């Protein structure tokens, strides 16, 4: 729109206005007889009947030249004046409403002429502020982006643009002041424009920066980081990732050999092979400063699914009371230097016994001092038990000293005994209450059971070691459910019980070993009430005994002086094959063979598990080892007979003869 054109238009409009004014004058005289009075008080007229007021007059009163004001406001002025003339209103009906407010301002103007410009300033800066407030957080409102893009297309400010801006501010009901003081309006508009463009530029810049950064990296605040680290998702990820990293870090010495370059230098490969004469070789120890220090190893087990995993339970820590009492750790014997356990599990009461569920790779079971049985699951990211039994009279109320999973893959049970003389059988899926519970009593006398074993794959018959020193055998079902036989020989509580479990040409499943506080280890047959042999080489409490799972005549004992012995009955029945005493005043509490019999694990009273590799000749029995053991057993029987004959030369009790016959039958079988 050129200025000439506009001028012409304005001229036209001015003429039209003049015409209208004249019409108005004509109309006013006949309709209002009060005109003289009306005219005498012009101020009142202005405030009350605004529509009839002559804008030009008012303008003049205010001291503004009509010509100067008109160019910018022509669209708003014309409807305003037309509003007064009701006759001409038909064509501009729609335009009437907005101008009414403008007219209102016109009236106010004379009273507050000076105060308007500053007010105007405030309003303008308000608009700027809205942009700036959006500036701070451009991503927060999508409208801002639209605004931004729309404004972005604008060219540099021109005269036309300036006009448009003024028009925009018109809508903000500031038209009058702009019209009357165009210079101020213009400058304000340009200032606003400038500021706006500047802020928009900043906004743009920020936006583009943000867009860039979202591609490269987003800086997180500390709170955000903390939030992420607290999320379960992160915890889950971390436990997984940290395990991998730690394993690969600690086990890298082995991996390093892969990259070793031997071409330039002499090979310094160590001879990892065991010497022929060496029976055992120290492998590593498992110890954790936080979890196992000042705790006694109470139970050890190995996984059937993952033979390299060792489960160990620990007693409560008397030195520090704020740590949880019950600790069960899973260690990995494959790793030679990784110092941390694979898994840590806790519970409130200290764990007296623990086993891997034989038929489920992820389930761990623990018997506690309080009598509860707890279930942990390695699939969850939790250390606390996923299930626990209720403390009720129907289950255990005393420490659960032994757990064993019996049965098959499809039908299995957990059997637990506590030393108030109770045996419970549980379904691992449903631990709320025992499926079965049986009071252990021998001739009405309750049995304080400390150890229990179901020999082989047996689900009915079991052997129990008691605090009184007797061993008992019994069955869970049948006519005579409960304890049937007793084996008397020990003078102290039985600490270890192990049933012979090597399948071979001869069946030795009736054999079992017991260790006791009376410094002795005794060999028994289920068929005889007297021990076959007693091994008395220890000079303190013997704490555990274990048959080798692969060699028929080999077993392992340990005592509280830190001594552990490997016996081979075929080699010598009087003295152990190997006797080792650990340094450092440790007391061994538990021992175990790995499933393949190639490693032994010893648990002590200082929270350490020691791992030893066992020489091949103890892991690969020869065929005649079974026959040899049979003859050894016969020899034992002859000795006991002789001893008995020496003590009672006159009478030969029936039990002894029975023993002799059973022994001969065994040898016949071979």
């Amino acid at each position, binding site marked *: 729109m050129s200025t000439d054109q506009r001028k012409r238009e304005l001229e036209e409009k001015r003429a039209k206005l003049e015409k209208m004014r004249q019409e108005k004058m004509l109309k006013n005289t006949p309709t209002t007889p009060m005109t003289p009075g009306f005219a005498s008080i012009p101020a009142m007229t202005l405030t009350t009947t605004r529509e009839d007021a002559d804008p030009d007059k008012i303008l003049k009163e205010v001291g503004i030249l009509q010509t100067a004001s008109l160019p910018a406001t022509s669209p708003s002025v014309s409807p305003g004046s037309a509003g007064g003339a009701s006759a001409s209103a038909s064509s501009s009906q729609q335009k009437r409403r907005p101008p009414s407010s403008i007219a209102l301002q016109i009236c106010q103007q004379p009273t507050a002429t000076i105060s308007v410009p500053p007010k105007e300033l405030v309003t303008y800066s308000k608009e700027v502020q809205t942009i700036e407030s959006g500036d701070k957080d451009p991503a927060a409102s999508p409208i801002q982006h639209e605004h931004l893009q729309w404004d972005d297309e604008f060219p540099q400010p021109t005269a036309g643009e300036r006009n448009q801006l003024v028009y925009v501010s018109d809508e903000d009901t500031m038209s009058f002041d702009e019209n009357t003081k165009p210079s101020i309006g213009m400058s304000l508009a340009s200032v606003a424009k400038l500021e706006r463009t500047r802020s928009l530029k900043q906004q743009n810049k920020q936006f583009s920066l943000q867009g860039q950064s979202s591609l*490269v*990296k*987003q*800086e*997180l605040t500390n709170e*955000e*980081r903390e939030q*992420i*680290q*607290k999320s*379960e*998702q*992160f*915890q889950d*990820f*971390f436990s*997984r*990732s*940290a395990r*991998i*990293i*730690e394993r*690969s*870090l*600690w086990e*890298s010495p082995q991996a*390093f050999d892969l*990259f070793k370059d031997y071409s330039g230098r002499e090979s310094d490969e160590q001879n990892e092979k065991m010497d022929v004469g060496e029976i055992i070789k120290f492998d590593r120890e498992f110890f954790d400063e936080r979890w196992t220090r000042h705790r006694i190893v109470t139970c050890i087990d190995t996984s059937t699914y993952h033979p390299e995993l060792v489960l160990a339970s620990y007693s409560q820590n008397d030195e520090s009371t704020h740590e949880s009492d019950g600790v069960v750790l899973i260690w990995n014997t494959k790793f030679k230097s990784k110092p*941390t356990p694979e898994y840590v599990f806790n519970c409130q009461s200290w764990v007296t016994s623990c086993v891997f569920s034989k038929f489920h790779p992820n389930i761990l079971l623990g018997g506690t001092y309080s009598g509860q049985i707890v279930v942990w699951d390695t699939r969850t990211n*939790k250390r606390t038990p996923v299930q626990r039994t209720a403390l009720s009279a129907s289950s255990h109320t005393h420490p659960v000293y032994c757990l064993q999973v019996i049965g098959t893959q499809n039908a299995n049970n957990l059997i637990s005994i506590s030393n108030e003389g109770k045996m419970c059988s549980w379904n691992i899926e449903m631990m709320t209450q025992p499926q079965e519970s049986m009071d252990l009593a021998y001739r009405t006398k309750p049995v304080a059971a400390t150890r229990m074993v179901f020999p082989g794959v047996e689900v009915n018959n079991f052997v129990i070691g008691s605090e009184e020193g007797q061993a008992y055998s019994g069955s869970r079902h049948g006519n005579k459910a409960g304890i049937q036989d007793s084996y008397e020989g020990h003078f102290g509580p039985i600490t270890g019980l192990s049933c012979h479990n090597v399948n071979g040409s001869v069946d030795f499943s009736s054999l079992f070993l017991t260790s006791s506080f009376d410094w002795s280890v005794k060999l028994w047959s289920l068929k005889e009430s007297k021990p076959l042999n007693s091994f008395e080489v220890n000079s303190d409490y013997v704490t555990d005994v274990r048959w080798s799972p692969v060699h028929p005549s080999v077993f392992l004992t340990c005592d509280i002086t830190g001594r552990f012995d490997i016996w081979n009955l075929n080699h010598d029945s009087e003295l152990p094959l190997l006797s080792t005493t650990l340094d450092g005043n440790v007391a061994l509490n538990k021992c175990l063979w790995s499933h393949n019999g190639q490693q032994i694990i010893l648990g002590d009273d200082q929270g350490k598990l020691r791992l030893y590799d066992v020489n091949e000749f103890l892991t690969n029995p020869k065929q005649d080892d079974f026959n040899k053991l049979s003859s050894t057993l016969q020899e034992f029987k002859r000795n006991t007979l002789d001893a008995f004959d020496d003590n009672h030369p006159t009478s030969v009790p029936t039990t002894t003869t029975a023993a002799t016959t059973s022994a001969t039958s065994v040898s016949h079988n071979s």
Partner: protein
Amino acid sequence: MSTTVPSTQQIEVEETIKRIQTHKGVHGFVIVSNDGSFVRSTIDNSTTMSLTGLIRTLSDKAKSCVRDLDPQNDLTFFRIRTKKQEILVAPDKDYLTIVLQANEQH
């Protein structure tokens, strides 16, 4: 989840990170989320940024490689053996762990 559980886990996380960090030769430990922002880092920001940017692309590439070979397969871990150091990377669903370990000096 109760309020006490995450706090103990938090301690656990800190302990593990400390343990990894103090392992012989380890001179950097970084956890990055998959959108590129690092959650934890024990090295300076600029190094972390360049490292994570490069490792992430490499990890993504390796992942797609593994998946292309066998759609049921997924990348779990890789280590880059270099003359000076070893970079251990454990990618996961939402995060990525990077550990820098200097080679043993002979």
